């Protein structure tokens, strides 16, 4: 199989399978959560509560009072990484073209040098987060193979994308195929690792806000 054939496979069957497994995995995981249900709360909720599930879904994106200064590395690297990844996925012109081919929807792209910088920033932030995970006693204790696997499969698409764009080391067609394979690996593993927080964090934040909100607390 030459490089072009490999790329064709990566863009064709491999991508289709990855997307199917991704979709099935996400549906399964959501079912695993929601099928457990929860008991109705019979206590009388407070009228006019400042808190609610929806409120917490949004407000929890900001650090709680006094928390930023306790662990600025996690917060700042976390923001830089998530923002950089978001810009790279959704605002690089070739990616928008890909989404258009899949869904018919299109939106304006950001200048490529800006996306390029955000990818570098995201990779640096991931590096910092990995070092922090290895050095911080709490994170090191909490971490298992799943955490390092999740780190690696998130880092690879950024790295391969960056290498493909800059034509570094590997022939471009092959590099693009590798970039696609890395994305496909990420898609398949996402539902079954902690990366599923991409979806479940909206659920957990909502429950948190709802639990506190009925008591009159804006969490």
């Amino acid at each position: 199989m030459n490089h072009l054939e490999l790329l064709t496979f990566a863009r064709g069957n491999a991508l289709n399978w990855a997307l199917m497994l991704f979709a099935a995995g996400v549906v399964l995981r959501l079912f695993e959560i929601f099928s457990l249900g929860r008991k109705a709360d019979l206590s009388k909720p407070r009228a006019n509560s400042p808190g609610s599930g929806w409120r917490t879904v949004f407000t929890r994106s900001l650090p709680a009072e006094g928390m930023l200064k306790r662990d600025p590395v996690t917060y700042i690297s976390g923001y830089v990484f998530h923002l950089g990844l978001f810009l790279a996925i959704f605002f690089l012109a070739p990616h928008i073209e890909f989404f258009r081919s899949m869904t018919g929807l299109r939106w304006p792209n950001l200048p490529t040098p800006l996306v390029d910088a955000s990818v570098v920033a995201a990779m640096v932030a991931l590096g910092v987060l990995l070092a922090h995970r290895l050095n911080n006693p709490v994170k090191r204790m909490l971490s298992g193979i799943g955490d390092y696997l999740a780190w690696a499969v998130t880092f690879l698409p950024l790295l391969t994308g960056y290498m493909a764009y800059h034509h570094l080391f590997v022939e471009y067609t092959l590099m693009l195929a590798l970039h696609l394979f890395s994305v496909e690996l990420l898609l398949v593993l996402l539902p079954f690792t902690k990366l599923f927080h991409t979806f479940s964090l909206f659920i957990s934040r909502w429950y948190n806000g709802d639990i506190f909100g009925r008591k009159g607390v804006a969490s």
Partner: protein
Amino acid sequence: MSVNLAKGINAFKEVIDAPIASFFSSCVHCGLCAEACLFYTETGDPQYTPIHKLEPLRRVWKQEYTLLGKLGKMLGLSKPVTDAELEEWKPLVYNSCTMCSRCAMACPVGNDMTYMIRKMREGMAASGHAPADLIGASTRSVEIGSPMGIRLPAVKAQMKHVQADTGIEIPLDVAGAEYLVLMSSMEIINFPEYLAAVAKIMKQAGKTWTLCSEAFEATNSGIQIGVSDIAKILVQRIVDGAEKLKVKTVISPECGHAYTALRWEGPNLVGRPYTFDVLHILEVLDGFRSAGLLKTTGFEDALLTFHDPCQLVRRGGVLEQPRNLLKMVAKNFVDTTDHGQMNWCCGGGGGVSAIEEAEPLRLQAFKKKKSQLEETGAKTLVTACANCRIVLEEGLEHYHMNIPVVGLTEMIADHLTEGE
């Protein structure tokens, strides 16, 4: 698997619901919950990371309620939860968690660790891994009527003293009164000024109220140890008393977890909504204030600060009331940093103050409160939870800090306008 372990695992399986599944699914092991927990910040020991305290519950969730976990279990790849492990986790689940919920306010993905610890304790207790001191308190609550072993004669003796001191008759078992007043054991034994304060305030406000001989104790060891059957018996006593006397409102005393037990857990424990309202005493007093029924004179001289009890502010929504009330009697008031919803726990909530072996750790964790107080320079500490109060007094004494701790209800009563 031993019978007890099976009971514990079953209890874990029973309490796991959609919120818990979403919490465990969302955790990215960022470790920020540790930074919100005073047992970690004051010891630097990673084992006190809140999400880590839930590890056995997490594994039961994964092995029982996820496809991958079930596959792992079938293939013998997953590590089963054992008796030895639960015993190892006992100090983490009980001694080092006051269910203060600070971590639940800080977690970026919104995990409510307190919600989970409360439920995890059901499995810990069912499998025989609850602390002996909490078992004792729960047994006394069921058999005697109070975790500290107080019976009705002790309450009657206090009523008599208060009557003699204030000249106000303390009503007992008066049907049709508007308010049923409850107390915590701590108030019966250590802080009789609470009952006197309530009597004076009710007299000034012109409200009818009563104590109940069958339901005087507000605290609930059942929700601390994690045995809902016991918690239900204790709440049911109050529900029965309130319904027998046909009161409109039951007043939870200056006790944080009693309020949680009665106001938020109670209807779920007894399986139906109440026919009466439940208010914390501070909510009642603030209601009197806004209705013009609370008249005070004079102000406290000393610089005051307020300790927000976790169960009131974070898990109860009682935030503004104490500050409204303090304004009536204090001009010289300063809030601590991280006050209100992000206040730091006294270190003794959630049953921790009742566990003797937890005392050294609790005193170590108190360093957080100590530094918070030192920063304000306050000369008097006001609070609204008798358990916080005793824990604060012990902590201050341990660190040789000469700061009196006062209950807010009592402080308000001291300033009531005479003769009205």
